[in-house]
């Protein structure tokens, strides 16, 4: 293990309890060293392409082209456009102009480190010594990564600061060049002019001169009232090339002399390749090599299809693991551990049993959710060119640029690894993993000198995912005579995502205690009355689990918002009124709920086989509510008629992008609630393709109306928060229509299907 890896091992900890640990690690690294880490990236420097980087976020070329660097994977969420808007606002440029573009930088700079995601801290939250050490310790490792809906959240202030700094540097250069005081100059997009308009100078002519200017301090950033780019529905910058079929995804990388590899992974979790009987495989048309990757076999060919045909023809013998995972056994284990109160962590306030005794009414329900696959439209893939001199170039649709580089470095004696991040055909957390890069790097190492693209088949992608863990929750509440929750107990059983992710991707030990992801959305729920208990139980299994759009919230919103609906029924109250009465009056959730009731025209039951379901959930610093209208016929066929959503994500950068994320997030959650289930039998995943793991399609999709809460608070995330309300809104709507409670997902388990309009 390299020095860098072990350093990361020390500093990479997630969750609020880790801050102090990171700070101690920071002190260990050395205050003097950390002070030299450039976390802001506000300096100007010459780029090796002959252009000039005016801050870490902006490149100016001599031909007056402006390139905005966005070190976040564009996987559909619109981050290139949204982040670009932050830069453009302060740089004072027209982001839609032809000489402006956005690119994902291949360099990993400290300023790009996503410490907001790793530490779960927003830069504006605090500025004490602990933050100083934590931020710099992460930045020293660079840790460029996309996830946790953090791009805008983590860079709201810093990137605008960079835009403003670049503007001032260029303006000072213009003043020097034109011999006019800076404050007399006017800026029009990428040029400055003298007061009489007689002399004009372009950014491209100023970049070199900007290098010699001193970055100003104490620049005042524009206030909300002055925004001209932030808050506007700027068209997505990537759409023109995406509708032409010209956008380059990972799978579209083409290099001279490139070859293709198909993969076959050992079908059982924990199994290894024991022996490969190649038969006549190497003699097949176009076959170049067969590589044993210990847990998989790759066949390299001149064409993906030929590679796949050949890999399927191999006769492979496996070394089986000691135990074979089984998803139904995991469920049973979690259930019995909840019954035995065999908690891995528990938090509580006040005397829970006493409050249950005193309650006017008690309600109890047990909910279950399944394992889920990410099923990104673009299957896992990475292209690696391991050159003869051991320099390595990687092209990958990855959410983990830095960890991908480490993965390539670890595959052989690589020096100077560069990771080029391409567009991704969906991500949803799957591309935070490094497995697809590791396999590609190993194949490329074996093939030294020739670029190779390793592509997974859909079945490989489905059966070797890092799944959203299934969960079980036993929910109990006591209500007082007025129908208010007086005591709440939530016992959640689920595999720990971090315990699975950290050792697998970063060579780090699992966290000592159950991580908060298992309980997020319940532990700090605004429904918690003064007396509450929130407990977790864990299970040890070889099924790999990972981050799936909204992570623990995807389970916990279902438990919490369905249970609140059940409590409303128990109290004999309308669900919306019940929730409003039980949420703190000044909470963001209550404000969203009120606006949602107004926009959806919430007036109570619909009747006639129709039902409306409601859910409001906070995740990733945003609150999203949804009202879903369904109709259900006698055959239990559910028509998804219409959804109304309200999103409070603080300051909105681009309303149309947020709307798209809300709609897409809801569809993602509805798809899972309607059909999604991964089952594991004898260590193998049963489902292989979209016929067995179905997706909601156009004919079934509801219309979705989105309302954004106006506001000027710090921005929250938008990529994930649209998903959590989907499943509870659907289950609550079906209850409203039929009187049947669905406590186990997907709804197909209770015999319900989705109508194709």
């Amino acid at each position: 293990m390299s020095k860098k890896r072990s350093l990361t091992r020390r500093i990479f900890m997630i969750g609020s309890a880790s801050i102090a640990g990171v700070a101690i690690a920071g002190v260990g690294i050395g205050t003097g060293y950390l002070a030299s880490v450039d976390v802001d990236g506000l300096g100007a420097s010459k780029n090796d392409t002959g252009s000039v980087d005016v801050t870490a976020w902006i490149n100016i070329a001599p031909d007056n082209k402006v390139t905005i660097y966005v070190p976040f994977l564009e996987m559909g969420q619109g981050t290139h456009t949204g982040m670009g808007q932050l830069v453009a606002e302060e740089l004072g440029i027209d982001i839609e102009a032809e000489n402006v573009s956005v690119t994902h930088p291949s360099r990993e700079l400290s300023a790009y480190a996503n410490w907001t995601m790793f530490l779960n801290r927003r830069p504006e939250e605090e500025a004490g010594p602990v933050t100083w050490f934590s931020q710099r310790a992460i930045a020293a490792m660079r840790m460029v990564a996309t996830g946790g809906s953090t791009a805008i959240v983590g860079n709201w202030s810093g990137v605008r600061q960079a835009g403003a700094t670049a503007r001032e540097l260029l303006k000072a250069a213009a003043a020097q060049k034109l011999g006019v005081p800076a404050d007399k100059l006017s800026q029009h997009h990428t040029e400055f002019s003298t007061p009489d308009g007689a002399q004009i100078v372009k950014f491209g002519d100023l970049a070199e001169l900007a290098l010699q200017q001193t970055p100003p301090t104490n620049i005042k950033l524009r206030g909300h009232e002055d925004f001209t780019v932030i808050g506007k529905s700027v068209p997505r910058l990537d759409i023109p090339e995406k509708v032409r079929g010209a956008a380059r995804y990972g799978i579209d990388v083409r290099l001279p002399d490139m070859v293709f590899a198909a993969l076959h992974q050992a079908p059982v979790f924990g199994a290894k390749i024991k022996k490969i009987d190649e038969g006549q495989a190497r003699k097949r048309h176009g076959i170049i090599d067969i590589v044993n990757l210990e847990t998989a076999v790759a066949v390299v060919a001149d064409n993906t299809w030929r590679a796949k045909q050949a890999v399927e023809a191999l006769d492979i013998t496996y070394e089986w693991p000691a135990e074979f995972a089984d998803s139904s056994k995991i469920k049973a284990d979690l259930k019995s551990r909840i019954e035995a109160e065999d908690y891995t962590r528990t938090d509580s306030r006040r005397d829970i049993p006493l409050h249950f005794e005193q309650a006017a009414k008690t309600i109890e329900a047990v909910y279950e959710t399944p394992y889920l696959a990410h099923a990104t439209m673009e299957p896992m893939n990475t292209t690696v060119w391991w050159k003869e001199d051991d320099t390595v170039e990687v092209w990958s649709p990855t959410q983990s640029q830095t960890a991908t580089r480490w993965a390539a470095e670890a595959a052989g004696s690589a020096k100077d690894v560069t990771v080029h991040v391409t567009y991704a055909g969906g991500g949803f957390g799957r591309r935070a993993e490094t497995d697809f890069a590791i396999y590609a790097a190993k194949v490329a190492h074996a093939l030294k000198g020739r670029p190779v693209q390793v592509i997974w088949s859909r079945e490989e992608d489905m059966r070797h995912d890092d799944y959203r863990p299934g969960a079980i929750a036993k929910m109990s509440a006591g209500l007082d005579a007025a129908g208010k929750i007086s005591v709440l107990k939530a016992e959640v059983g689920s595999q720990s995502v971090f315990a699975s992710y950290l050792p697998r991707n970063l060579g780090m030990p699992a966290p000592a205690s159950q991580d908060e992801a298992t309980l997020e959305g319940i532990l700090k729920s605004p429904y918690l009355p003064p007396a509450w208990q929130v407990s977790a139980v864990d299970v040890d299994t070889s099924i790999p689990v990972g981050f799936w759009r909204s992570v623990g919230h995807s389970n916990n919103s279902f438990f919490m918002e369905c249970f609140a609906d059940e409590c409303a029924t128990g109290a004999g109250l309308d669900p919306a009124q019940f929730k409003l009465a039980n949420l703190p009056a000044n909470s963001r959730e209550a404000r969203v709920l009120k606006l949602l009731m107004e926009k959806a025209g919430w007036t109570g039951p619909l009747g006639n086989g129709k039902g409306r379901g409601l859910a409001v959930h906070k995740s990733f610093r945003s609150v999203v509510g949804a009202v879903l209208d369904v109709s259900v016929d006698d055959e239990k066929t559910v028509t998804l008629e219409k959804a109304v959503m309200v999103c409070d994500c603080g300051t909105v950068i681009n309303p149309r992008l947020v709307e798209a994320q809300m709609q897409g997030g809801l569809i993602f959650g509805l798809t899972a609630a309607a059909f999604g289930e991964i089952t594991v039998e004898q260590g193998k995943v049963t489902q292989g393709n979209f016929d067995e793991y179905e997706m909601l399609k156009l004919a079934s999709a509801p219309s979705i109306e989105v309302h954004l809460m106006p506001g000027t608070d710090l921005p929250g995330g938008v990529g994930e928060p649209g998903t959590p309300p989907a499943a509870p809104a659907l289950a609550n709507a079906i209850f409203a229509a039929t009187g049947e409670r669905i406590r186990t997902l997907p709804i197909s388990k209770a015999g319900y299907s989705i109508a194709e309009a």
Partner: protein
Amino acid sequence: MARLTINGKGHDLDVEGEMPLLWVLRDELNLTGTKFGCGAGLCGACTVTVDGEATRSCITTVESVEGTNIRTIETLADAGTLSAVQQAWVEHQVPQCGYCQPGFIMATSALLDQTPDPSDDEIDEALTNICRCGTYERIRAAVRRAAQLKKSGGQS
């Protein structure tokens, strides 16, 4: 050997007759706009038109399309001008990740060539592709807009 006519151009290809068209397009001709999604004709990301019919190229063998006219996303725009369907897709800001959209655009192009003013049911029947980002609402609006643009004289 196979001879295929793709985007109006003839290609002599040294490929097996049973190779799916998708892999000829992507790996032999570097026409990467047509995407691989499932390999089983289930998701539609690989949709091209064959003699004007929307066709899932991942389950269409080379030998079955010899002598036909195959069209891919790359030449939908005429000399740089977007087709009506592509224009509508831009106007309605349809794509998110965009990976499935070439397939949707090709399927919509074939639909509107045959049914210039499709009903909702006809749209549902023709567009059975999968979009994991959930852009369906914008797709429906864009199909309607494309029909309008085509009628008002835009190209297909």
